[in-house]
Structures are given as structure tokens and as C-alpha cells.
């Protein structure tokens, strides 16, 4: 009898990657869910003896799913699959009853290893049919951003010694004239400081921008064990240290997955203690429509607000789509 396996991930690209990574000779009935609530419904309907669960999802996230499984005593074995690779995330899900934790991007060998370790994979059955569902180009980039965000988040967590909340990246096409609007949606009226850094490699180029709300400095300084007064210069140092790590790790995360490497320009301090609407005096009308990845980093129990945006140049979209389409193995 085939084993009911449920894959719960908000990215259809990640769902597909996961499905493809399952052993070919494992006799399963696959079901998919796009958020925690859908996932729980499928579990209650008996569609998931084994559940591969993502953590960062809309409606109900992975942690909430684990809590509900425990509360309702649902009969399933959960393997968490996440781009959030902070050691603390692993500890938390294991404490909530997950069997194991697999880091994204998914590695087929690792899956096989874990299935064998827990004796989940029974006798070989028939080879499963090839799965073919359409994956949107933006959805692929979303998943790449998700993994890159997780890596950068992990470095930040290690640097600060705190748990970083990762609500999931937003990937979208934006118009040049809308850049101001997008930015003002990040921070309505509070003063911010911002750093920009250009990157280029393998026909893909763009600029990363990190904005840091004024009120964050005090808490960041505490976490980084900064001694002495937090004056203007100390704030600048903190801003640069954080931007080095977040921008660097995020770009490296993207580059590694695409199997390329980026040259990074020198960072530019775009503005300090300014209203976000004053930040961009630059003429952005040279391009019409391009891709933006927006990532929010929040620190648990701390007043730290830090947003990273990767804005790709218009002419790198083709190369980006071509590179990411290689990932549909």
C-alpha cells in the first residue's frame, strides 16, 4: 500500500523540488498544501502519514502547524524543510515534536538518508510517475531568495546572539516610477539610515539596499555588546557591520544557488537619519520595470527593524530567468 505523503510549502517551486527529491522507488501518494491551514486539513483527511513541512508560510506557519499537530494528537511524522537555518529554529521544531530538520535547498541524498534512518521507507514499490506542474518564474526566484535570506539570517543571529524572525521574502516586478512608493511602504514616517551596494556577475547585476530604522540602534548596540555612548560614529559602524553581513550573505546565497559569483562594489551610505522619501534623489526613470526582492529582518523581543531590498537591473532579467530555469532538474 502506498504511503500518504504531504508536502506543505507556500512555494510551488519548493513543492516541486521536494517532490522530485523523494526516492524514485518509494511507493507514495503525494498531496500538496500551500499553507499551514491547508496542510492541517489534509492531515485530518489522512493524506499525510509523512509530512514535509516548511516553516515560513502565510496563514499558519510551520511552528503553528507543529503546535496544532501536538494539540490535536494528529497521526503524522513531521520532517521540517526550511531555509531558516538558525540552530535555534532547529531546536525549536525538534522541541515541538518534529522528527528531523532538513536545510533548503533540498538535497535528495539527505532525504534518502533521513528516510532510512527512521525506517520510513518500506519495501520498494513501483516507480512514481514524473511530476510535472508549472512553476512560475517569480516563484523560482522567491525560493532562491528564501534560501539566501535564511543564510543571511543565520549569520545575523550568530553575530547578535539572538533569534531572527524571517517572515519570508517578497518578490515582485516593480515600475521605475514606483520605487519611491515601494520604499515608503517599508517605513512610513520614521527616520532611517540606508546603505546601498552594487553587485554584478554572469550577466546579472543590481543593487542591494539596506534600510535601518533609527529606533533600532539602541537594541543593536546592546546585542553587539557595544561599549560606551552610541554616538553618530558608533551608529555608522553598526550600520556598516550589519550591512556587510546581510548584503554579503544574501548575495552569496543567491550566487551559490545560481552557481555564479558576484563582484561587489563599495557600499555607499545613502542617507542618515532621514525620512525615507528624502532618501532617493536619484533619477530612476532610466528603467521601466524590474525585479525586486524585499526581505524584512526582525529580532525576537527587540525593537530592531531592518529591511533589505535587492533590485535587479532591467537587462539582467533574461539572464536571471535563464539561470533559474536550470534549477528545474
Amino acid at each position, binding site marked *: 500500500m502506498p504511503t500518504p505523503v504531504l508536502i506543505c510549502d507556500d512555494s510551488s517551486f519548493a513543492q516541486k523540488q521536494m517532490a522530485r527529491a523523494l526516492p524514485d522507488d518509494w511507493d507514495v501518494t503525494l498531496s500538496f498544501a500551500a499553507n499551514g491551514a491547508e496542510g492541517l486539513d489534509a492531515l485530518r483527511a489522512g493524506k499525510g502519514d509523512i509530512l514535509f513541512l516548511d516553516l515560513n508560510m502565510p496563514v499558519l506557519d510551520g511552528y503553528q502547524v507543529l503546535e496544532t499537530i501536538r494539540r490535536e494528537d494528529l497521526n503524522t511524522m513531521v520532517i521540517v524543510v526550511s531555509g531558516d537555518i538558525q540552530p535555534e529554529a532547529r531546536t525549536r521544531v525538534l522541541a515541538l515534536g518534529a522528527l528531523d530538520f532538513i536545510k533548503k535547498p533540498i538535497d535528495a541524498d539527505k532525504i534518502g538518508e533521513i528516510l532510512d534512518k527512521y525506517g520510513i521507507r518500506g519495501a520498494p514499490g513501483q516507480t512514481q510517475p514524473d511530476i510535472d506542474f508549472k512553476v512560475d518564474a517569480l516563484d523560482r526566484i522567491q525560493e532562491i531568495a528564501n534560501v539566501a535570506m535564511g543564510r543571511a539570517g543565520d549569520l545575523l543571529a550568530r553575530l547578535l546572539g539572538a533569534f531572527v524572525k524571517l517572515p519570508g521574502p517578497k518578490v515582485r516586478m516593480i515600475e521605475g516610477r514606483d520605487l519611491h512608493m515601494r520604499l515608503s511602504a517599508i517605513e512610513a514616517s520614521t527616520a532611517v539610515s540606508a546603505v546601498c551596494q552594487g553587485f554584478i556577475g554572469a550577466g546579472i547585476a543590481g543593487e542591494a539596499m539596506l534600510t535601518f530604522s533609527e529606533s533600532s540602534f539602541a537594541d543593536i548596540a546592546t546585542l553587539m555588546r557595544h561599549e560606551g555612548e552610541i554616538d553618530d560614529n558608533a551608529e555608522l559602524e553598526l550600520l556598516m557591520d550589519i550591512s*556587510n553581513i546581510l548584503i554579503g550573505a544574501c548575495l552569496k546565497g543567491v550566487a551559490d544557488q545560481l552557481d555564479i559569483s558576484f563582484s561587489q562594489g*563599495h557600499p555607499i551610505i545613502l542617507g542618515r537619519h532621514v525620512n525615507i522619501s528624502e532618501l532617493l534623489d536619484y533619477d530612476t526613470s532610466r528603467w521601466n520595470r524590474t525585479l525586486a526582492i524585499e526581505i524584512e529582518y526582525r529580532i525576537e523581543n527587540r525593537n530592531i527593524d531592518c529591511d533589505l531590498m535587492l533590485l535587479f537591473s532591467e537587462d539582467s532579467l533574461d539572464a536571471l530567468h535563464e539561470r533559474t530555469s536550470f534549477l528545474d532538474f
Partner: protein
Amino acid sequence: MPGHNTDIEGFHWLMDMVQTLDVGLMVLDRDYRIMLWNGFMENHSGQSAADVIGNNLFEQFPDISKNWFQNKAESVFLLESRAFTTYEQRPYLLRFKNYRPITGTAEFMYQNMTLIPLLSPDGKINHIGVILYDVTDIAIGKYALEAANTSLAKLSRTDRLTELYNRGYWEECLQVEFARYQRTKQTSTLIMFDIDHFKKVNDTYGHQAGDEVIRLTSRTLRSSIRTTDIAGRYGGEEFGVILIDTNAEQSHYLAERLRKKIAALKIGFQQHEIQFTISLGVAEVSPAMSDHAQWLSASDQALYQAKHGGRNQSVVFAG
């Protein structure tokens, strides 16, 4: 190295270019010993590669801010990610003197720095690369622009004749002060005053005499108020002063003192001796006002009463 030349030849070319590059390059090991020192570093520091290779960076250059540099470098070793610093954080890592007598614009070289992790054959990060860029011209250009903007901003809010704030900027200050009052409920008082029969001065002695009267009035005003008070030229011969954290009674005292000082002035202009007076209206901010314009109008009403009551006097707005 791609191409059909031998690796050795390519390596020599590369070394030549590293030596000649107008960018500072050095490699440090885990104990901060200098392992590479290119031509730029030799020439600007005055210390040859032979003198520094193998030595500890901080012993060789005791002026380097050790804690700061180590902090950045350790994160590159540990997190295996690049780090960038700008001249805005620290002007330089190593103090290199200005070397251009004609076009050199600063005393020393401003530097941007990049730190990169260098992978060893064993797969570990045992060394870091330090890249120093000369950004003196950029830094000086930026500081000059900032200074120019600051002085432009000052010019654009100052009235030429009186050197007080001009009307536009002064009214902005009044608006800000009113907003502050609404937030904190800390009182403030506004004095509006103008020179009595100013037109007669102009008509009798000419505009130059009029200008002199205005100049002397503003000078007297400036010397009579505190540094926290905000004085502006509101119109031709009309002035405004915002007295922070001051009530109507205290302000009335100040208004009277100013009035008496001005009445006692004698201006010698050509063979004439000119004397003149001012009338003042005083209004403390109140919860009944909903914007700064109402506050301004209250002082104006008091000023009107002072004029109507025979000039050379100050009147407090009665509400």
C-alpha cells in the same frame, strides 16, 4: 588564467599589474602577519616589502586602530564574508601623507577598505586580503559640497539688511514652536513690533537713512534677547520675536526694555540727528489657538492697540 600563454608567463603579468596597480593590497595571516605588500603600499608607506613581510601589522604600524581593525577582520575570518568600510567611518587605516603638491586637496589620504576572505588549499580561511582605495578626491568633494550646502542654507534663511531670519524661515520657526507647544504644553510668547512713522523717516531723510534705522533696530533687538529666542524681519519695518519658555508678563518686561532702549537711540545721519520709537504687541500662546496664524494674529491685534493708543508703547494681548 585563460589564454594560450603559459601559466608562468600569465603569473608574471599578473604580479606586475598587482605591483603597479594604484590600489593598496596586502595579505594578512591569522596572526596579523603581513604576507603580501604591493608597490602602492611600499611607495605610500615608505616601507619596502622586504622590511614588512612576516612582521605583525600592529607592531609594524602602531598607529593603526587595533581594536577597530581586528573587529572587522575577525568577522571576515569567522563568517567568511567580505567586509567593507568607508572613509566616513574612519578616514584611513594607515596614515599616508598627501603626495601631490599641486592637486592634492587634503593633508592625508582618505581610504575606503575592503577585506576579503582568502581560501587556503585546505579549504579553510587562513588569510585575509586587505584592499585600500585612495578616495581623497571623493571625500574632499563631498565635504566641500556639504559645507557649501550649509552656507547656502544659512544664506537662504537670512535677511540681508538686518542679518535676522527672513520672513519665510522665521514663520517656519513659529510653526515649529507652535507644534512644540501643542505637544509639550510649555508656554512661549510672541512679540510683534514695528517702527513708528517709518515712512516719515524715509520721506524726510531718504531711503539710506531708513535702512540705517532698520539696521540699528535689529542690532538693538539682537543684543536684547537670549540666544534661544528667535528673531526675524517680518516685513519692511516690522519684526517678530519668539520667546521660548517665557510667559506674557516676562515678555512684556523685555518688550518695555527694548522700547526704552530704542527710544533713547540717536542716529547721526549726514548733518541730521534722527530719533525714533517702536510699538509692540505681546501675545502668549494659548490652548484656544488652533494654529500658528492665530497666534500671529493675536500679537498683531495687540500691536494695533499699541499704535491706536498713541505709539511708543507695548500692549499685551488680552484674549
